[in-house]
């Protein structure tokens, strides 16, 4: 025991590999063809988390706001890159606007949570800022990918409808308003579903961490409520802003639809 948390010794950590072996066994037995993915996923889990632990150790020790912001922007770039990879659309260039919008929106939300709600001092205190920022980015990455994928697929599937409205005098925003609404809704639904299930189906990550750390569960609950509301707000704001910005890029000069 160290500060309320039971330390996991190296050999016990390696013992956890038995679960990866179990997954590999299922893949072999059922000929799922996932053996390579399970192996790469396991190695990446070890490598990425050890690297993150090492970097966080340095950032916590240095305590520089620039270093914290720099790390946040790297995390935002990784989130944007991952979300970009999940959206299969090549006719519209959206990678850069996506990165800048994600970085700006989620930075603002993270600052609001650490500075105004948790009231960390200073607001960029890495022990608060980076985990909170990571949760905002991780959840929003999925919602942004879902929203954009839906936007692009709907603009293609409903091209005749969009075009019909344009021909009757609608501008690009009016012609695609319905597709934008559906896309933002698609981005928000997973976080809303999590809100419905939280505390009933699972004890969420942040709360689990605090309880394992020996904290008072009633205090852990308060943190988790902030996190849940923050994620809903972040996914709503991120999906809306990203969808609106990238919708504009789906139309050429003269409000000409590019997706058909």
């Amino acid at each position, binding site marked *: 025991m160290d500060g309320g948390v039971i330390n996991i010794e190296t050999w016990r950590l390696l013992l956890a590999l038995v679960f990866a072996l179990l997954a590999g066994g299922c893949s072999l037995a059922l000929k799922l063809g996932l053996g390579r993915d399970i192996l790469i996923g396991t190695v990446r889990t070890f490598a990425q988390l050890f690297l993150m632990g090492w970097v966080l150790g340095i950032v916590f020790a240095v305590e520089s706001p620039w270093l914290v912001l720099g790390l946040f922007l790297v995390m935002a770039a990784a989130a944007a890159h991952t979300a970009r990879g999940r959206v299969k659309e090549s006719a519209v260039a959206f990678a850069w606007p996506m990165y800048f919008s994600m970085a700006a929106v989620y930075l603002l939300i993270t600052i609001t949570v650490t500075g105004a709600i948790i009231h960390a001092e200073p607001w960029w205190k890495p022990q608060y800022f980076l985990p909170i920022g990571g949760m905002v980015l991780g959840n929003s990455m999925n919602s942004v990918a879902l929203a954009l994928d839906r936007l692009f697929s709907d603009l293609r599937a409903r091209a005749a*409808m969009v075009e019909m409205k344009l021909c*009757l*005098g609608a501008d690009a925003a009016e012609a695609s308003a319905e597709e934008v609404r559906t896309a933002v809704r698609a981005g928000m639904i997973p976080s809303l579903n999590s809100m419905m299930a939280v505390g009933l189906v699972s004890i969420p990550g942040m709360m689990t961490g605090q309880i394992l750390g020996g904290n008072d569960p009633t205090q852990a609950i308060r943190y988790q409520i902030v996190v849940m509301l923050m994620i809903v707000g972040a996914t709503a704001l991120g999906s809306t802003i990203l969808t609106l910005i990238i919708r504009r890029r789906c139309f050429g000069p*003269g409000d000409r639809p590019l997706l058909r």
Partner: protein
Amino acid sequence: MPRQTSAQTPHLALARVRFAHARPAAESGPAGATRNILNDADLAVPRGAFVLLTGPSGAGKSTLLRLFCRLEEPQTGQVLLDGRPVAELPPAVLRRRVSYLQQTPTVVAGSVRDNLLLPFSFKAAADEPLPGDAALQTLLESLAMDDVPLGQEAATLSVGQRQRLCLARALLTRPEALLLDEPVSALDQESARAVLDAAESFCLERGGTVILVSHADFVPARVAPAHYRLEGGRLTWMGA
């Protein structure tokens, strides 16, 4: 190339327009090649003219119509409305002056009335008064849709009725020109006749310009159309 001329500025015109599509992968030819749709095409359509445009499938007849309302942009050359490049007009204004009717009728969820009033929900029509039910009903009657109540769900209409509804909706925006993209190809005889009658009336009674794309040879009953044929990137005047 012989073509119709006018001493006045033509209402709709193409001036040395070149347009090429990327060649679909399924077609023969080198990868990344393009297929010429219009090769330095010229066209001058006087106000109030009725143009019949024919040509083989895939020749680019729809593309030609779509150029006039900026749903396509030419690679070179100019597309003109009253002598002015269409790119100089705000797109919503252009598309209400030059109304393009899609080949497949597209209706929104809701009643016939909701569909007819759709163009008035856009900012471009903010200052226009909403037509009343009596005006809408009269318009439907002119398209042989007397038996269709305004409250009926548009989705329950037949294809022919939906095409007539779409034409009525386009006419409510009071366009100067109608671009009709094979509007009768999938219609029964009654619907086809009603659509073509309305197009001829638009030309004769309102002085509007019509370009009608048609696969089949079509002879209007009341107007003498200028017949053009589009094939292999060339637009040829076939006579009046």
